[in-house]
């Protein structure tokens, strides 16, 4: 066999992920990054509930943060925010 194929498990049955699907990392889809203004944020969780990609994280200490490894930058969070606390900033304005 000269060509090395991508191997797939028996009958293409693959284990379910537990935290995130490492097989499809979508952070490089984003060209506008969501940025939360923590002073404005009321922690109402509206952005959290509406994120199609489950990329909004909430914590009592940190408040709202985004899973930038997977966030596609759709902007739904910014659109639904009742207090306008989430802005969308060009991704290339950030080094990382």
């Amino acid at each position, binding site marked *: 066999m000269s060509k090395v194929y*991508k191997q*797939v498990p028996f009958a*293409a049955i*693959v284990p*379910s*992920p*537990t*935290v*995130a*699907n*490492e*097989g*499809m*990392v*979508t952070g490089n*889809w*984003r060209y506008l990054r969501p940025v939360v203004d923590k002073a404005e944020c009321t922690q*109402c*969780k*509206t952005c*959290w*509930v*509406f*994120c*199609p*990609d*489950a*990329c909004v994280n909430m914590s009592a200490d940190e408040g709202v943060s985004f*899973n930038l*490894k*997977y966030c*596609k*930058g*759709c*902007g*739904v969070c*910014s*659109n*639904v925010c009742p207090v306008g606390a989430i802005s*969308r900033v060009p991704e290339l304005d950030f080094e990382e």
Partner: protein
Amino acid sequence: MAVAEMIKSIAQAPEKEYYLPGHRTCAGCGPALAYRLIAKAAGKNTIFIGPTGCMYVANTSYACGPWAVPWTHAQITNGGAVGSGIEAAFKMMIKKGKIQDEFPNIIVMAGDGGAIDIGLQAASAMMYRGHDVLFVMYDNESYANTGIQTSPATPYGATTMFTPAGPEIPEAKKFFPKDPMALFCGGGHPEVKYGATASVSYPIDLMNKVRKGLAYEGPAFLHVQCPCPKGWTFPADRTVELGKLAVEVGMWFLYELENGVKKFSYTPKKLKPVEEYLQTQGRFSHLQPEHIAKLQAWVNAKAQNLGLEVPLPPVR
């Protein structure tokens, strides 16, 4: 019916995710949001059946998937049948003591094509036979996975790859959509005790309807409107906004049919003109006033048929 634990607010919504980050759905995908909320409401003891459609192809590209619970593919034709077989198997294997599992929540996540077009026969038979399965029709109003083609859920007047507008057919799509609630829950499937419409823009309502449907023994049906930024042609950040607007203009109605009794989950004070909704989407950009009037008349008739007692916009 087991008593479903209801969610009263966003703050009470379960934290745990079962539809995880990492899928090839569009930025701002309505159906992906539906999947996430449904998985969240259903919880760990759940098995999903995914007939072919966007929520199969986009979610499982490639040789992986975003579900933390068991998931299996079904053909676009046979979600209802595969769901039936799984349910029958669990019932019998538990009865015989061959497995120690708790009977799981079994959810078929069919798109509009997999629910009311090519998959209609299997869905209908599953409901007729009374399988304890929640059949969800995530409705993005087209065959989206193949690049946006008309389905029986595509609204009158929408352009798709198969219904372009042109001088001979200025309105694009000519037919009015099927009514899935009438098809499945209009009395024709006596085993279906619970059916509801929902929208990704009303997440608490959606999650509670999932739980209610699952709590009923026997088949339940959920018709979820899922705005599709690609197919409807609108900016991806407006998905939730458009789902709400659909309800405000009467292009979507939120209600339940529980043991034959209809109950509206939310009603606007008055319906806004449908034109406000049409303007937001590229798929309607070609419509002429006579087409808009025809659509308004359809909305008004539907509101009246459903018994929605609010002021309706004039048909011009």
